[in-house]
């Protein structure tokens, strides 16, 4: 993309993009931290994740303000407008991913404090979901930086798999609960955690759709996978 006549405008947009990347990095750390705390039953790490969520919220507000300022001062159009609008939506999704990480950490603390049913934290499918969504998050942040809409489209498609894993996890945990009612409290907590992970996948998908909007100017939400394929093929 060539430069603006106004250098100041260029540097304002660059600064917003840089902030989104930093916020994305922080959210990724939070998510990985929360998943590790859960997998390793690490009380200290859970606490840390909960405390650090404030930082994510602050970044969201700072970026939103910067977007509003650009709209007021520069009246962005075309690619610039799409960028500012998409950033302001994407940071909301990033902030929500941060919230899900915090929830995972809090629930982990509950499980550790309860002290029973710890084996349920070792369910393979949950770990798998965690790895899958962490990868989606890393890749969608990458796609955002490079405005790579093909990569973004593949992330949108992958969200379905996370949803399937979630349903499998629920089925598996129900069998544990039926076998041994003492596991019910912890099994429910693990379902909450799996649900949080599943939500992270949804947010990654939303951000991927924002990337496609910036790059192609097309709103691909609610199109379904067939519609998405059609849009990506167009032009």
């Amino acid at each position: 993309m060539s430069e603006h006549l106004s250098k100041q405008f260029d540097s304002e947009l660059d600064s917003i993009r840089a902030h989104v990347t930093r916020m994305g990095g922080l959210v990724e750390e939070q998510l990985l931290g929360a998943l590790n705390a859960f997998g390793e039953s690490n009380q200290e790490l859970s606490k840390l994740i909960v405390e650090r969520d404030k930082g994510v919220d602050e970044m969201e507000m700072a970026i939103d303000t910067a977007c509003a300022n650009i709209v007021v001062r520069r009246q962005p159009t075309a690619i610039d407008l799409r960028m500012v609008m998409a950033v302001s939506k994407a940071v909301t999704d990033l902030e929500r991913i941060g919230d899900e990480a915090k929830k995972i950490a809090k629930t982990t603390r509950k499980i550790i404090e309860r002290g029973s049913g710890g084996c349920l934290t070792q369910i393979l499918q949950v770990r798998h979901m965690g790895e899958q969504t962490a990868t989606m998050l890393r890749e969608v942040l990458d796609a955002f930086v490079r405005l790579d809409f093909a990569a973004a489209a593949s992330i949108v498609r992958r969200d379905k798999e996370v949803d399937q894993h979630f349903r499998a996890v629920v089925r598996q945990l129900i069998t544990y609960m039926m076998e041994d009612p003492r596991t019910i409290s912890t099994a429910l907590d693990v379902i909450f955690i799996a649900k949080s992970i599943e939500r992270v996948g949804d947010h990654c998908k939303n951000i991927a759709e924002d990337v496609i909007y910036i790059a192609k100017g097309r709103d691909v939400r609610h199109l379904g996978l067939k519609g998405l394929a059609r849009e990506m093929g167009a032009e």
Partner: protein
Amino acid sequence: MNPSHSPIPISALPVKAEVRDFNFHYGAFHALKDITMPLCERKVTALIGPSGCGKSTLLRSFNRMHDLYAGNRYGGEIILHPDQTNLLDPRVDPIEVRMRLSMVFQKPNPFPKSIYENVIYGQRVRGVTKRSLLDDKAEEALRAAALWNEVKHRLHDMAFALSGGQQQRLCIARALATDPEILLFDEPTSALDPIVTASIEELITELKEKVTILIVTHNMQQAARVSDFTAYMYLGELIEFGYTDEIFIKPRDKRTEDYITGRFG
């Protein structure tokens, strides 16, 4: 708000005028090249583009202002619907054309006459003399131009006694008094302050209930605010024409995008 994903195709909309394969030469200088575009009926179309790209030249071709100079050459057609009159046909009387299309310029240019005489000028040219008809026309046009309440008690004062914004609305009233089918605006607010500009933009939006409007503007936000369609011109060519929303959100041509986002070409 239009909830549907894709807007109505432009080709399906009623058309008031059509520019077809239009070329224009100022002597040896080829100022407009193969321009083809519609003016959709009772819509506002904005012409944007860098200084010298030919916006005013195109606008002026509509009311045959270039006829005044020998050496200027037209090619192609500008068709006015529904009667399919080719405005450029030498057999078409330019005075008649100017009754059907009225022009408002960048700087308000009232005649050195009273407010009243300015408004009914076109009627006088047409030979209307009946006082009551002229009075009615003056009031109607001044009301349509949102000026009536400010001047109704001083209709016979000189037009120059009005403020800049009032003078511009007077020129709009004068343009409206001939009941034109198309209004042509060449940067109508560039000499006016933001408040007056906002009121003229408001007026343009009201006027399109009745007339088709073509407006040249250097103010990109103004184009985005008032127009339904936007044409981007560059070096005498029409680069892109489309719905204003599309041009300002996702233009198809990189040159359009560079221009409206303020980038180096």
